[in-house]
């Protein structure tokens, strides 16, 4: 199978999973013991006629499977339903909130990769030396500390106490500088980074620590590989071995981990956005949960799961592209 066919194949394979997710969220959402109409009305006085009207409007008087099929039909056309609480279409809500979440998650990843890989390599190279010990302890703390707690501490130290960085919100690079009263794109860019820094570290620390541990292990293993011994025996400089021979092989598992950890990062975004007051999907999810705005909850769950599945597919393809041994997984 060629890479293109493999890509198509992987996306096709994801379809049943996405359908499964839609069933799962739909069933979960309809487990709500409360009467959805009452929830929609949120205490507003309503007579029987009004209730029936709402039920008919949202099709709540029909059997579950029919409603599910309707929901699916809508999904296919990009219609994810309607937010009772916000009186807007769910698709529209999600579209307006997905940007900040992507910005946050991607920058957290950028931070994690930019720090974990060099640190992991150096630690592997200097195995059991002080640098290794310190970086292992840092990584251990990183995987053991709740991201939201890191966020809280970062806000207290760097925003409130030292006043170096903003305590909340993001500056969206896709908006014009005038929106924020910035003088030109340089300030706009600087402000974007300044606002991103703390939430990115809060969300990225766990990723950094995880990747650093994997990177270190992989590099150690790779450096013990026969091909490294061979390269050394042929006088390849240590630097080249580290950067090319050992590195390239060690990165393969990292690619997989990056994809799989997207799950943690997307979940963590809920907490990070909450702590840093970022208007992303995570905050929308939290609000929707509190308000039991169930079409929004379903929509976000679908979108986040889809993002995860796509992320995994992308990393799988990247893996297949980089590792010549992968036979594009016809069978297990």
């Amino acid at each position, binding site marked *: 199978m060629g890479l293109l066919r493999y890509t198509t194949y992987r996306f096709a394979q994801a379809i049943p999973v996405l359908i499964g997710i839609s069933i799962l969220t739909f069933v979960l959402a309809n487990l709500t013991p409360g009467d959805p109409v009452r929830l929609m009305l949120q205490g507003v006085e309503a007579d029987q006629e009004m209730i029936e009207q709402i039920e008919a409007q949202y099709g709540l008087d029909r059997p579950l499977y029919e409603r599910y099929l309707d929901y699916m039909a809508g999904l296919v056309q990009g219609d994810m339903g309607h937010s009772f609480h916000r009186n807007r279409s769910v698709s529209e809500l999600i579209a307006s909130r997905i940007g900040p979440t992507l910005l946050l998650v991607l920058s957290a990843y950028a931070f994690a990769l930019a720090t974990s890989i060099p640190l992991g390599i150096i630690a592997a190279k200097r195995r059991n030396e002080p640098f290794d010990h310190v970086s292992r302890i840092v990584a251990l703390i990183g995987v053991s500390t709740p991201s939201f707690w890191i966020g809280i501490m970062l806000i207290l130290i760097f925003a409130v106490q030292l006043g170096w960085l903003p305590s909340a919100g993001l500056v969206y690079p896709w908006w014009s500088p005038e929106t924020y009263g910035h003088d030109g794109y340089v300030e706009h860019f600087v402000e974007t980074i300044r606002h991103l820094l703390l939430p990115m570290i809060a969300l990225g620390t766990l990723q950094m620590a995880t990747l650093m541990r994997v990177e270190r292990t992989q590099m150690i293993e790779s450096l013990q590989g026969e*091909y490294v*011994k*061979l390269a050394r*025996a*042929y006088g*390849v400089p240590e630097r080249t071995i580290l950067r090319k021979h050992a590195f390239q*092989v060690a990165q393969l598992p990292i690619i997989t981990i990056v994809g799989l950890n997207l799950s943690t990062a997307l979940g963590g975004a809920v907490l990070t956005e909450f702590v840093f007051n970022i208007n992303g999907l995570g905050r929308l999810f939290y609000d929707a949960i509190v308000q039991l705005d169930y079409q929004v909850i379903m929509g976000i769950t679908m979108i986040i799961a889809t993002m995860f599945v796509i992320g995994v597919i992308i990393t799988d393809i990247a893996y297949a592209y980089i590792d010549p041994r992968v036979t594009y997984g016809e069978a297990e």
Partner: protein
Amino acid sequence: MSSEPLLRVENLKTQFFTDTGTVRAVDGISFEVYEGEIVGLVGESGAGKSVASMSLLRLVENPGEIVGGEVTYKGETIFGLEEGPDGELRKRDDMLSNEEMRDRIRGNEIAVIFQDPMESLNPVFTVGGQLREFIELNRDLSREKAREEAVDMLREVGIPDPEERYEEYPHQFSGGMRQRVLIAMALACEPNLIIADEPTTALDVTVEGQIIDLVDDLQEKYGTSFIWVTHDLGVVAEICDRVNVMYLGEIVEQAPIDELFYDTKHPYTDALLDSIPRPDRTVGELDPIEGVMPEAISPPSGCRFHPRCPDAREVCRRVHPENRVVDTTESAEPHRAACVKHDAFDVGYDESPPLEKEPQVTSEPDADTEAGVTGPGPGPGPGTGTGTGTGPGSSGGGGEGSE
């Protein structure tokens, strides 16, 4: 064979410093390699052959370290120690620096063929790319030149369609083909010496034969010297000129190939020979060596082979024999062996009572022995490692309880 050897190894010692004690993987070996000859380094797994060969390139990995001896290649010192002003051993000034080793010796003077062709090639780079990289590096060729050379070399080692296969990845090659690639790699760098570390062990017998024939041919053509590391005396018999037999970090017998096979001087070599099929004997006579080789972390006292030796006597437990000339061949080459039963030793072997057959020394050391071994520590220097070794108690119940 010229008078000046290409490579001279004298009293080389390489040790591993682990949590559980010091492992004397190579414990004072000496041998020479002359231009154009194939020298065998034979022994069971764990005898220290591979460590010895990697020591020649100063590629011993942590926690291992070369702690003593001298390695000279073409008159240049690859490794050598001298005594400093305060009595400490330090590296000699004329010893090649790490950079010199890397740039001048490894690859372009001494190349290596590793044991495991499946693992030795980097799985994520093309075969040709790896070959080209080494050629480029060691022969100062341009990229294009190196590529041409690589393709030629692939053809030379018998890989069909070398142009196409150049672009393929190692997993697309069979084991034998990969080994050919490794041989191509070694030869392409045009070294004077190739260390072949069990190059055929991982291959099946027919492929092994082809590879050996290939090496034989190529060696003749290029005149490269080889150190052929193997546990298989059969292979040695086929291609080697001279042989060193290693046991537990030491060379126990050293002789030209014919003398070794037909005038064996060490019981261990005897035992090895008995354990392999030979054209002059029937399979029924095959005789495996008794017991398992002890770990180098706690070698038995006296002669290290004595717990497994059919000829062992009481004296063997006490006296540690170094490798001595016990005979001279017709071509005036010495035949060395480290066994006290030869007259050259004169430590009273004949009078000594034989040791009774004993339960084998197991390879699993118990905690007590480990503790005892760490005693001598890393203190290197000539003399310490040999002699009576690690002293009483080190070989545990094996020898002493036996009497």
